[in-house]
């Protein structure tokens, strides 16, 4: 008898919870924000969170969108493609007006099909794999650059600046990591350089000494790694421990303060391809200062990008006065935008027309843009 009562009470409570949350959310405009919000890449998710939060607060202070308050629906994909699909379905079911995300290419790509079928616009701040926009979807945009551009920049730097020919290439088997590594190899081969080693590692492992020992056998001058910062930390640390003097080059996934902080001395002299210094873009100053005031830290690699992706979505909704995905997408495609990253224009695929990549170096525990 007592048990039965308990069940009734529990169900009533659960029902009450559902009712209240729905009643509360009825007057808002929902925007989906997805990325690795927890787990080993939580730092990247934090960038996305902070960037979008600043944008939403700005707009809500101005009175919201279409006369309604903007509400963020968080989706944690934990950089797992399967989770990303689940998150995407949840967003479509909740009828979000648009999505900022996902962060990892391996998540953005499968999720984009679900958004297309649901009629939802997707703006990624950070997925750099070319395939995201190459499949001819009407609803996808990316605010950042592409890995073929980035790989070209890395190869160019190895060949022209470092003047090295013995390159080992390693990646983490993800869409992003392998894509970037392969684009770099393509660009190197155009310059007549064939990698002395090409291999991969598994994300989330802790001991890469066996692989590094094999790489050491080939005596490379440069190691190019396609992947994200947690593995890059371990790789650099363990490389130095094995006494390897090889130069370390990687892409934007490693441009994270954790890389420099945790890898410490091992990160010194590492090269990272990334976009030019955002602190020197005058339009970005507002966001950077707000971030400092609100979160007490400097912006991460893709904080401003996340902010810009959110603002583009809001401005397009405001301009079209509509929540219809197709209309919003069309407006984003044909407009010349003035953003916190400077002027932006999209091509028909959804890529930005200009995306310069430069090389950064870790000097005295800080990322410094090479001139």
């Amino acid at each position, binding site marked *: 008898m007592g048990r039965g009562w308990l069940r009734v009470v529990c169900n009533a409570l659960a029902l009450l919870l559902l009712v209240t949350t729905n009643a509360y959310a009825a007057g808002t405009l929902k925007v989906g924000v997805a990325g690795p919000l927890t787990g080993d890449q939580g730092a990247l998710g934090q960038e996305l969170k902070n960037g979008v939060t600043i944008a939403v607060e700005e707009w809500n202070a101005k009175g919201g969108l279409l006369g309604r308050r903007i509400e963020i629906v968080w989706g944690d994909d934990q950089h797992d493609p399967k989770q990303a699909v689940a998150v995407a379905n949840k967003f479509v079911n909740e009828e979000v007006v648009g999505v900022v995300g996902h962060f990892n290419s391996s998540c953005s790509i499968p999720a984009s099909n679900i958004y297309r079928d649901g009629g939802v616009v997707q703006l990624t701040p950070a997925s750099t794999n070319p395939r995201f926009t190459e499949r001819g979807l009407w609803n996808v945009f990316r605010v950042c650059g592409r890995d073929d551009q980035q790989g070209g920049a890395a190869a160019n730097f190895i060949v022209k600046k470092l003047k090295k020919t013995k390159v080992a290439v390693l990646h983490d088997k993800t869409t992003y990591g392998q894509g970037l590594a392969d684009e770099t190899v393509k660009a190197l081969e155009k310059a007549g350089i064939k990698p002395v080693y090409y291999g991969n590692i598994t994300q989330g492992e802790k001991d890469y000494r066996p692989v590094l020992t094999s790489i050491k056998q080939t005596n490379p001058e440069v190691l190019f790694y396609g992947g994200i910062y947690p593995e890059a930390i371990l790789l650099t640390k363990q490389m130095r421990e094995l006494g390897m003097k090889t130069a370390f080059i990687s892409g934007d996934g490693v441009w994270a303060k*954790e890389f420099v*902080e945790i890898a410490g001395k091992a990160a010194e002299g590492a090269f990272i391809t990334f976009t030019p210094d955002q602190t020197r873009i005058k339009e970005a100053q507002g966001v950077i200062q707000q971030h400092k005031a609100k979160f007490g830290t400097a912006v991460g690699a893709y904080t401003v990008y996340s902010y810009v992706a959110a603002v583009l979505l809001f401005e397009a909704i405001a301009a079209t006065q509509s929540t219809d995905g197709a209309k919003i997408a069309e407006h984003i495609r044909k407009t010349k935008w003035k953003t916190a990253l400077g002027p932006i224009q999209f091509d028909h695929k959804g890529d930005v027309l200009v995306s310069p990549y430069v090389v950064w170096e870790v000097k005295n525990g800080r990322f410094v843009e090479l001139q």
Partner: protein
Amino acid sequence: MLLQQLVNGLTLGSVYALIALGYTMVYGIIELINFAHGEIYMLGAYMGIVTFGLLTTLNLMAPDSALTLACMMIAAVLFCGACGITIERLAYRPLRTAPRLSPLISALGVSIFLQNFVMLAQGPRDKGFPELFIQGGIDLPGGRISAIQIFIMTTSVLMMWGLHLLVRRTRIGKAMRATAQDKQMAELVGIDVNRVISVTFLIGSALAAVAGVMVGMYYGLINFYIGYIAGMKAFTAAVLGGIGSIPGAMLGGILLGLIESLGAGYISSEYKDVFAFAILILVLIFRPTGLLGTDTSKRA
């Protein structure tokens, strides 16, 4: 290359062996696979970082002194030892006479609880382990042994030797062996079985704690999930050597480390875990009791 992979394998293996001892000792005494043992090792790593943080932020010690490391180890050992005893009291002792599946489920529950507890208390992100005083290494023809690898191997060997002496030469060791042989008989001749079981958990947890701190130093990164993988590997090592056999756990750990390292270096790093578990399956097919295990049916 071969020398380097051997060194890597032995380092990894000695850590596996330390953790495997906990599984094997507990199984030997109460015939329970303590699935929360991997989490004890994870707690040891976290306790090491917390201690380091306390000592250095309060400026009590220099971050690169040997004393700091000693304090980290001692704090981790005390904390994990207490955790081990408590877990046994709360989660296993009430179920000692229950069907064998119950304590196993209880152990899984403790494991999930501890993982999530640490995730919430310390955050889900990777934590960087401090660079301690052990730096540098020795270059050999065809490889390099880093100081930290030497440290890990030496500490592990000393620990195992200590355990061997304890089990063979002391009164409590004798009581442990008696309890492992026949719990009821041991009780009849006046051994306090509950105390013996507590001591077993204490020792196993202490070894795992030391392994946790050392692995933290070795990799430089820890998170709340490391106990799961390490626990799986160490459990495999214990079964490989013969569950319930102390020398077996040591041998199994070392073998597993070597198999993984050589497999990763010479065949493919992708299949590293496959080799480890394939060997396990083969051993179980041809020698169900493990390499050094004894047939339990004869023991009774």
